[in-house]
C-alpha cells in the first residue's frame, strides 16, 4: 500500500500530501495516492468523502491548497486545465457532459486532438483521418449508426457512452471516469462494463463508482476515501474485509 523503496518515477500518477480547503473545510486532507502504469484504480467512499474533488484537483478544475500531483513526472498543480489535457489526462464528468446542439459526429470531431488553437480551429479540415477515427470510436461506443443524430436526443446511457468516446478519441494516457454507470439500465450497465474492459486494457484508469458489483468486475486496486483521507487501500477482497471500511461505508 505504501510506496516504500519505490521512486515516484515508476508511477504514472503520484499524489503527495494533497490538501484543499474551502473556507477552512478540508475536502481533501493530506491525501497521498499512487497509480501504476496500466492500473485500473477505483475510488469508493461515502458521499462527501472527497472523491470527485480529487478528480477536480487532478484535472485542474480545483486548485490545490498544498501538496503535489505529478503525472509522468510533470507537476499538474501548476498547469492550466487545457495544458493538463494536452499532457495526457482525460476526464469524464459525473453527469453526461456533451454538446447537445451538435451531432454525435461533431461531438467526437471537436474532441479529436488537432486544431486546438484559435487559428488551428479556423483552418481545421475534416479529412479522411478525422472521419476514420470518429467512425472507429463511434463503433466502440455503440453509436456507429447515430453519427448524424443530434446528441440531445440520445438516451442517458448513450450520452454517457458518447462522453467516454469523446475521451477515447483524445487517446489520454490517464483516463478518469466519474460514476460511468450511474443512472444506466441493467442492459446498458453490462454493455458499459464490456466497453470499459475493452478500453482499459493497457491504459491507466481512475474510476469513481458506487456499484460494488461493477467495482469488483473491473478494479485492480481500490482506494477508500473518508473525510478527505485514505481510509484503506488494496485489492477489493482486502478492502471489503477491512473493519474500518465496513464501519464507515460498506456496512450501511
Amino acid at each position, binding site marked *: 500500500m505504501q510506496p516504500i523503496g519505490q521512486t515516484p518515477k515508476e508511477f504514472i500518477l503520484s499524489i503527495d500530501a494533497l490538501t484543499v480547503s474551502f473556507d477552512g473545510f478540508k475536502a481533501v486532507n493530506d491525501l497521498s495516492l499512487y497509480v501504476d502504469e496500466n492500473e485500473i484504480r477505483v475510488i469508493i467512499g461515502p458521499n462527501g468523502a472527497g472523491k470527485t474533488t480529487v478528480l477536480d484537483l487532478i484535472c485542474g478544475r480545483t486548485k490545490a491548497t498544498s501538496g503535489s500531483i505529478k503525472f509522468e513526472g510533470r507537476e499538474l498543480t501548476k498547469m492550466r*486545465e487545457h495544458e493538463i489535457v494536452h499532457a495526457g489526462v482525460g476526464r469524464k464528468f459525473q453527469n453526461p457532459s456533451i454538446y447537445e446542439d*451538435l451531432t454525435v459526429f461533431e461531438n467526437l470531431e471537436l474532441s479529436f486532438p488537432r486544431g486546438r488553437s484559435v487559428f488551428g480551429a*479556423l483552418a481545421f479540415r475534416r479529412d479522411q483521418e478525422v472521419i476514420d477515427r470518429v467512425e472507429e470510436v463511434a463503433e466502440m461506443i455503440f453509436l456507429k449508426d447515430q453519427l448524424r443524430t443530434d446528441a440531445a436526443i440520445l438516451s442517458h446511457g448513450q450520452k454517457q457512452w458518447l462522453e467516454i468516446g469523446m475521451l477515447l478519441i483524445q487517446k489520454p494516457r490517464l483516463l478518469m471516469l466519474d460514476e460511468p454507470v450511474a443512472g444506466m439500465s441493467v442492459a446498458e450497465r453490462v454493455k458499459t462494463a464490456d466497453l470499459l474492459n475493452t478500453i482499459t486494457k493497457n491504459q491507466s484508469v481512475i474510476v469513481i463508482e458506487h456499484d460494488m458489483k461493477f467495482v469488483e468486475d473491473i478494479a485492480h486496486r481500490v482506494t477508500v476515501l473518508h473525510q478527505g483521507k485514505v481510509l484503506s487501500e488494496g485489492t477489493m477482497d482486502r478492502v471489503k474485509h477491512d473493519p474500518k471500511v465496513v464501519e464507515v461505508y460498506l456496512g450501511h
Partner: protein
Amino acid sequence: MPTVGFLFSKKEWLYLAILAALLLIVLPASVDIFRLNLIGKYLTYAFVALGLVLLWGNGGILSLGQGIFFGLGGYCMAMFLKLEASTPEATKIQSTPGIPDFMDWNQVTALPFWWQPFHSFTFTLLAIILVPSVFAFIIGAAMFKRRVGGVYFAIITQAVAAILTILIIGQQGYTGGVNGITDLRTLLGWDIRTDSAKLILYFINAGLLIGVLLLAQAVRMSKFGRLLIAMRDREDRVRFSGYDVSNFKIFIFCLAAAISAIGGAMFTLQVGFMSPSFVGIVPSIEMVIFAAVGGRLSLFGAIYGALLVNAAKTTFSESFPELWLFAMGGLFIAVVMAFPFGLAGVVKDYVEPFVARRLPVLLGRGRAPQPQAAQ
C-alpha cells in the same frame, strides 16, 4: 457525414440571392435617394447585428456594449474626414487655422498628436479595424482570462460603453463633445454629400455587408463555429477537451468588434457625422434588439431585423416620439417570450413548411418562392 455544400446549404444560397436582390436591385430601384440613404444607415447597424449573431447567438456571450466598437470605427472615419475638411484655407477665420473647428472653439491651439496619423487614409482604414479590435482584446483578455461571463460580462460592457460616452462628452476639445464630429464634406476630394455619392456609398455599404455575411458564415462553418456552440452549451467540457476557452472568446469578441466598426465607419460616411449618441448604453441595447428580433442564430435574420426595427423606429417615432422606447422595449419582451429565435425562427417554423407544401403549385407557375419576411 453532414453535407452542407460550399458555405451555405442550397436553401441558404437562395436566401442569399433574395437578400442580394433586395439590397442591390429592389430597394435602389424603388425608393428615392433620401430613403435609400436612410436604409443605408439602417444597414450599418446590421453589421453590428451580424457580429452579435456570432458573439451572442453562437457563442452565448451577450455584449451590451457593441456601440463602443461601432462608435470607435465611426470616430476613426470621422477624424479623417474632419481633418480633410479642416484645411487652413477652409478654416482661415479660426484663431488657429488648419485644426478642426470644435478644437478652435475649445481654445485648443494645436492638433493633438493622436489626431496626426488620421491625415493618412491608409492609416485610417487600418485604424477602423485595429483600434476597436485592440480595445476589444483588452476588455476580452481582462474579462475572459478571469472567467468573467454571463450577466457580469454584459454589465461590464455596458459600463465601458457608458464610460466611453462620458469620456467623449467630457473631452470636447479633442472629440467634439456631445455634438460629435460634424460638418464632414469630402473623402479624398470626393464630395460625400451629393446624391450620386450617397448612391455609390449605399452600394459599397451593401456590398461590404454581404461580404461580412459570407465571412461570418465561413467562421460558423469552420470547426471554430462548432466550438462556439459547444462553449455556449458546455464550457467545461470544451476546456477539458484541451481548448483554452478564453482565447476563443477573446477572438470572437474582437471579430464582432471589427465587424461593428466597419458598420460605424460606413455610418459616418453615409450620415455625415458621428456623435456619442451612437456609442452609449441605449444604442448598444438597441443593436442587441435588432439581432434578437431578426433571430440571434441567423445571419440573414440579423440583417432583416436591423432593417425592420429601424424602419419601424423611423415611422413610429415620427408620429409618437415619446412612445417609441416603450414600443421597442415591448417588442423585445414579446420577441423573447413568444419567438426566441426571432423572425428567422418564424420563417423556419411557419413559412418554410408552408412553402414546402405549396412548392409544387408554385413550381407549376414557374416561380421561385419568396420565403423571407422582407415586407
